[in-house]
């Protein structure tokens, strides 16, 4: 008797899990459609439903924070934000398993993504620069020297007027968006030499701080203390102003992609991300630059023009 009870409880539990799992997958899209109808008739009085977002781990904190505030304002809305990488985000949004896919790079730059089916929403800008161990003793580097450092042609900091220390490269993984952006705009497309490779920017920062002669690259948001030294490139300081005016070259958009035009809850959330409130406060808190203040614009091929 007792074992029977236990067994039936287990079956019930299993059934419940299957049920919730099935709901979690299927219901999200249905509910969004439902919201769409109501928002049209009632002039977006009350938003409800659920939205799933996945992709770039660099964007995850920003989008999660925005989602939290959005959910506070709209209690009937449920937004799930998962990290997992730009490739995952783009793949999942293209196959329709999430409504919004976040990416550090243009969908056109990733192999195997039907970029023409996806609609790009540039929600933020992130600036990056090379970061060195503070004991290296330099704060500015010429772009050609930076390329020589990363391709292994210069192997000691004393050649650049720093300390007599061997240069240690800290890279990101081959397919990482950050690496792609840094290679493209800071190294002019040169292939970096071999070095320690770490996936998390926090680990990269830790390694640069602890290893003598180390150099890597980080987003501006990681320069919160003096444990690593951000380098100016060709005398231009890595500041928000210089990125916005187009003087500092190493920056990228943070993209939110939707399959087809955004509608319903996805549109409401993307509009919310572009609102002045989020662009001017939350973005800054998280170390991003507002996309609305950019004075230059870039396309998928990397061509830059003034707005």
């Amino acid at each position, binding site marked *: 008797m007792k074992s029977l009870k236990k067994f039936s409880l287990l079956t019930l539990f299993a059934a419940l899990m299957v049920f919730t799992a099935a709901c979690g997958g299927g219901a999200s899209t249905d509910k969004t459609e439902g919201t769409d109808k109501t928002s049209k008739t009632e002039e977006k009085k009350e938003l409800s439903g659920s939205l799933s977002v996945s992709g770039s*781990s660099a964007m995850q904190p920003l989008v999660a924070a925005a989602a939290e505030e959005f959910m506070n304002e709209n209690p009937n809305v449920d937004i799930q934000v998962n*990290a*997992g*990488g*730009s*490739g*995952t985000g*783009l*793949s999942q949004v293209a*196959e329709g398993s999430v409504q919004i896919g976040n990416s550090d790079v243009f969908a056109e730059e*990733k*192999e*195997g*993504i039907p970029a023409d089916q996806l609609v790009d929403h540039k929600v933020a800008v992130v600036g990056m620069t090379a970061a060195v161990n503070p004991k290296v003793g330099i704060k500015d580097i010429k772009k050609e020297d930076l390329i020589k450092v990363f391709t292994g042609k210069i192997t000691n900091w004393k050649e650049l007027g720093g300390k007599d220390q061997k240069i*240690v490269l800290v890279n990101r*993984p*081959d*397919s*990482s*968006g950050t690496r*792609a952006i840094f290679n493209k705009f800071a190294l002019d497309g040169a*292939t970096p030499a*071999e*070095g*320690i*490779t*770490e*996936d998390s920017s926090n*680990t990269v920062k*830790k*390694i640069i701080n*602890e*290893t003598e002669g180390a150099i890597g690259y980080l987003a501006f948001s990681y320069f919160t203390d003096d444990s690593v030294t951000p380098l100016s490139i060709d005398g231009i300081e890595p500041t928000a102003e210089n990125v916005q005016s187009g003087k500092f070259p190493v920056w990228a958009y943070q993209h939110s992609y939707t399959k087809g035009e955004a509608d319903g809850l996805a549109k409401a959330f993307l509009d919310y991300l572009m609102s002045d409130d989020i662009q001017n406060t939350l973005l800054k808190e998280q170390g991003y630059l507002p996309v609305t203040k950019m004075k230059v614009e870039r396309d998928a091929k990397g061509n830059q023009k003034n707005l």
Partner: protein
Amino acid sequence: MEKIIPAKERLLKSEKKWKDGELRGKILVTICAVIMISATISITIFLGTKGLQSFIKNGVSLIEFLTSTQWNPTNKANPEYGAFPFIFGSFAVTFLSAIVAAPLGIGGAIFMTEIAPSWGRKILQPVIELLVGIPSVVYGFIGLTVLVPFIREHVGGLGFSLLSGVIVLSIMILPTITTIATDAMSSLPKNLREGSYALGATRWQTIRKVLIPAALPSLLTAVVLGMARAFGEALAVQMVIGNVRDLPSNLLDASATLTTIITLNMGHTTYGSVENNTLWSMGLILLVMSFVFILLIRYLSSRRKM
């Protein structure tokens, strides 16, 4: 007064109950077995089809993949897919950590079963259970914050090295080896020991000449299972090994393994791209290797059977 039930009725009743239980048990156990077998088969089929795509669909040369040392998948003009440095790295950390952990684990097992069965077990058992319970990310993090700086300052190199990976992995596979070796040693029949003592052998002679040879198949199984775990471990190794694509020339060189390359790149690549497919191919290599490990266990234990 107790109610008397005729024996026949009681027998029928209990027989029926017994049959019910028998059937239910049989069904339950069969379902478990079927689920386990089908899970293994489907994983094999899935990984097989996914992993072979880079060779069949994308035309990556299998020989280049297995032997070339040039890994450069993001180079658009001339992508290169040589996974040899990672295969080498995986084997290097696996064998080296087995060399470190096997004597330690088997020694601990002998200590627990032969030298100090009562208090030795009381101390070592909880220690080993504790080691099993620590998640691999914690091993990696301790390795990154303690081991890597230590090696950098006292041994040399960058700290991120094969050596760090080997040390972290040895500690991680130690519980596997020790537990299985302990079971193997303690399940040896008592008359083996008594017979040996009766012939005038000392304790050490008994351990060395009788008990270890008798338990050898199981001890080897313990080591091979430990190696299988080391071969598949990703997270902790990734944090301390440095993930450099070049072949390491010595123990202090940074290196990379198949698993670290998979975990580092999987999220950034898109499904169906060549790079993603080559990562699946690396997964297939890991699966094939675990089959090889299992075959090895089978071979060893069948050959040494007494």
